C-alpha cells in the first residue's frame, strides 16, 4: 500500500510541476505536429522543372514524373530561377531539361538532364529516389524508340509498357512509408520513444532533491522498510515513463488519428521501454548529488540516444555505420518495433526480436537502477 502512495506521489509531483507540464505534455504534441509536417509521407513533394515545355518528349518526361500524385511539378523559366528555388527549399528538387532535349533525342543522339537536390533534406532525398527511378524508365523507352523510325517505335514502346505498373519510392525494395499512412503515424512513434526516455531522465532530478532535502531520511524515519521506499520510488519512475508514453500514444491517436496497430504489441513495447527509461533515471538520479549535473546529463544522454537511435531523423535515412551504432540504443529497437506495428500491421509475434532486446535493456537498467537507488537513498 505504501509503495503505491510513494509511487503516486512521484507521478503527481512530476506532472503537476509547471515547467514539467509544458515539457511533458504540450511539447510532445507540438513536436508530433511539426515533425509530421517535416517528414511525413502525406506531404506532396514539389519538383521544379525548367525546360519542360520545349517539345513532346520533354513533356512526356514531366508527365511520367507526376504519376502517382505524390509529386507536384512546378515549371520554372530558367536554370537560375530553378536553382534559387531549390536553395530556398521552395521545391525539394529541380530537374533541368536542357534546350535541345527533344531535338537531340530525335536526332539519335543522347540527352542529359540535370537534377538539383538539397543536402540534408529528407524530403529531398525522398524526391531524388523518385526521380532516379522514373528517369531510367523513360530512358529505356526512348532507347527502344531509336531501334526504328522514331515516332512509330516510340509509340510502340509506350504501348509495350506494362499498364498500371507504378514505380514506388523505395530504398531496399520495400516501401518504408506505405501509401495511405498519415504523416503523424511516422513521427509519433519516434516521439514516444524520445520523450519517454528524455522525460524519465529529466524527472530524475526529483530523486536527487529527495535525498538532498532530507525527505528520503524523513520517510525512512517512519515505520516504513527500506525496500518499500525503494520499491515505491522505482515504481514511481516507471509510472512517470509510462504516463509520458501513454499520453503521447493516446493523444496522438485522438488528435492526429495515429493508428498504433496491435494494442498488445504496442503495450508491450511501451512497458519495456518505460522500464528502460525508469531504470536509466534511477541510475542517473543516484549517481549525482546535485540537481544541475543531472539536468545536463539528462539532456545530453536523452537527446544523444534519441539521435543515435534514429528517433530524431528516421532510422532508414541513416548511413550504414550509424545504423550499426543505433543497434546499441534501446531507441532503435523500439523504433523498429513500432515501425512493424504501425506501418506493416505486425502483431506481438512479429516484433519478438525487438521485444526481446528491449527486455534485455530493461532488465539490466532497471535492476541496476534499483540497486543504485537503494544505496543512494539510505546511506549506512
Amino acid at each position, binding site marked *: 500500500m*505504501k509503495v503505491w502512495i510513494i509511487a503516486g506521489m512521484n507521478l503527481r509531483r512530476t506532472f503537476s510541476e509547471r515547467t514539467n507540464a509544458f515539457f511533458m505534455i504540450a511539447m510532445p504534441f507540438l513536436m508530433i505536429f511539426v515533425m509530421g509536417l517535416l517528414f511525413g509521407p502525406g506531404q506532396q513533394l514539389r519538383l521544379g522543372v525548367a525546360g519542360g515545355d520545349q517539345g513532346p518528349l520533354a513533356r512526356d518526361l514531366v508527365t511520367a514524373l507526376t504519376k502517382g500524385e505524390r509529386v507536384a511539378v512546378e515549371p520554372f523559366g530558367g536554370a537560375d530561377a530553378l536553382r534559387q528555388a531549390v536553395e530556398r527549399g521552395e521545391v525539394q528538387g529541380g530537374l533541368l531539361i536542357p534546350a535541345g532535349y527533344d531535338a537531340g533525342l530525335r536526332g539519335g543522339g543522347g540527352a542529359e538532364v540535370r537534377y538539383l537536390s538539397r543536402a540534408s533534406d529528407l524530403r529531398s532525398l525522398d524526391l531524388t529516389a523518385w526521380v532516379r527511378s522514373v528517369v531510367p524508365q523513360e530512358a529505356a523507352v526512348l532507347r527502344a524508340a531509336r531501334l526504328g523510325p522514331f515516332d512509330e517505335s516510340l509509340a510502340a514502346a509506350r504501348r509495350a509498357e506494362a499498364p498500371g505498373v507504378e514505380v514506388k519510392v523505395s530504398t531496399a525494395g520495400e516501401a518504408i512509408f506505405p501509401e495511405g499512412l498519415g504523416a503523424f503515424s511516422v513521427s509519433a512513434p519516434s516521439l514516444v520513444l524520445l520523450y519517454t526516455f528524455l522525460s524519465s531522465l529529466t524527472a530524475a532530478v526529483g530523486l536527487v532533491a529527495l535525498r538532498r*532535502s532530507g525527505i528520503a531520511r524523513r520517510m525512512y524515519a517512519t515505520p516504513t522498510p527500506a525496500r518499500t521506499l525503494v520499491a515505491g520510488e522505482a515504481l514511481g519512475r516507471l509510472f512517470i515513463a509510462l504516463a509520458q508514453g501513454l499520453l503521447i500514444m493516446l493523444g496522438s491517436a485522438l488528435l492526429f488519428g495515429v493508428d498504433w496497430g496491435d494494442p498488445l504489441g504496442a503495450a508491450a513495447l511501451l512497458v519495456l521501454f518505460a522500464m528502460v527509461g525508469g531504470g536509466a533515471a534511477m541510475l542517473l538520479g543516484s549517481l549525482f548529488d546535485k540537481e544541475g549535473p543531472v539536468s545536463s546529463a539528462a539532456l545530453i544522454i536523452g537527446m544523444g540516444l534519441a539521435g543515435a537511435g534514429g528517433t530524431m531523423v528516421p532510422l532508414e535515412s541513416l548511413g550504414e555505420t550509424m545504423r550499426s551504432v543505433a543497434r546499441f540504443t534501446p531507441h532503435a529497437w523500439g523504433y523498429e518495433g513500432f515501425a512493424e506495428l504501425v506501418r506493416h500491421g505486425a502483431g506481438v509475434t512479429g516484433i519478438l526480436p525487438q521485444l526481446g532486446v528491449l527486455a534485455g535493456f530493461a532488465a539490466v537498467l532497471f535492476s541496476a537502477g534499483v540497486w543504485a537507488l537503494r544505496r543512494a537513498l539510505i546511506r549506512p
Partner: protein
Amino acid sequence: MAVLEVSGLCKSFGETLAVDGLGFSVGEGETYGLLGPNGAGKTTAISMIAGVLGRDGGEVRVGGQRHHPAGRRTKAMIGYVPQEPALYPDLTGRRNLRFFARLHGLAREEAGRRAAEVLELVGLTGRGDDLVGTYSGGMARRLNIAAGLLNRPRLLILDEPTAGVDPQSRNAIFDAVRRLTADGVAVLYTTHYMEEAERLCDRVGILDGGRMRAEGTRRELVALVGERDQVTLRAEGDLGAAVRALAAIAEAGEVSEREDGVELLVRDARAVLPRILAAVTGTGASVGSVEVREPDLEAVFLHLTGRALRD
C-alpha cells in the same frame, strides 16, 4: 521509566570520530538538551537515535525496546524533526503532512484529521493550504515540527529547531514543546544556543568532539564547576557597614562595595537571599533592588573545554 536510553553510541566518518561513546537517557515528560557547538556531533547522534543513520556501535532503547535502524516498532514511537525542513516545497503544508501521515500507517481520513490537528498545534492552520515553497523560514520550521508529531510520538527528537527563526516562530516552537512534555512526551532537543538549553531543558548534556563532557540539570552542571551566584544589591546608607555585615555570613564569598551598592558571590543565592537582605537592612541601609545572576552554561562549557560555546 526512561523513554529513551542510549549507551556507548559510536559513529565515525573515515578519520572523523563524530560520536564517541555517547550515553544518556530521557524520561517521560522530560526535555533533554544536547548542547554543543557546530560539529560537536549532535546531528550524527540524533540521526542514529532516529534510526535514519546506521551506527558503528552502541545501543539505543526506545520505550524499553531495543531500537535498530530498521526497527519499525520503535520507529512508530519516535517523532523525528531533522535540522533542515524536509518537506516538498511544491506541495501544500497539509498535503505534505498527509503524505507523511500515510507513511506512518494512518488511513486516508485519519491522516487528513491528524494533519489538521498538528497544523493547529504549531499555529499554521491558516496557512495549511498554501504551498510550502511560499512559507517563511520560521513557518517551514514549524511545519517541519508538525510533521514529526503526526504519529503522536512518545519520543520527539528535534535537531536545532530554532536555528535562524524569527522570535515569533521561536516562541511558538517553545510553546509546542512545553505542551507536549506536559502530555508526557519525552523530548530530545539539540541546540548550540546556551539560552535555549537553559530556558527549555530539564537536563542538559554537554557535547563536544563527539563526547559527552558533562550532564545534569542546569544547577548540577553549574555546581560541577564550582561556580557561585553573583548577587548585586543597590542600596543607600553605610555601605561599609553593609559589607562587613555581609562578610559575616558563612556562605558568602568575596564581598565588595560598589558605587551605588554592594556585590557578593555566594553559593545558592536563592537560599541565602533572606539573610543577605536582613544583614544589609540591619545596618540601617535601604535596599533599592536585588539582582541575582546564576552562572550560565556558557561558563560551564568554557570551564570544561577551555573554549567558548560560540566563536
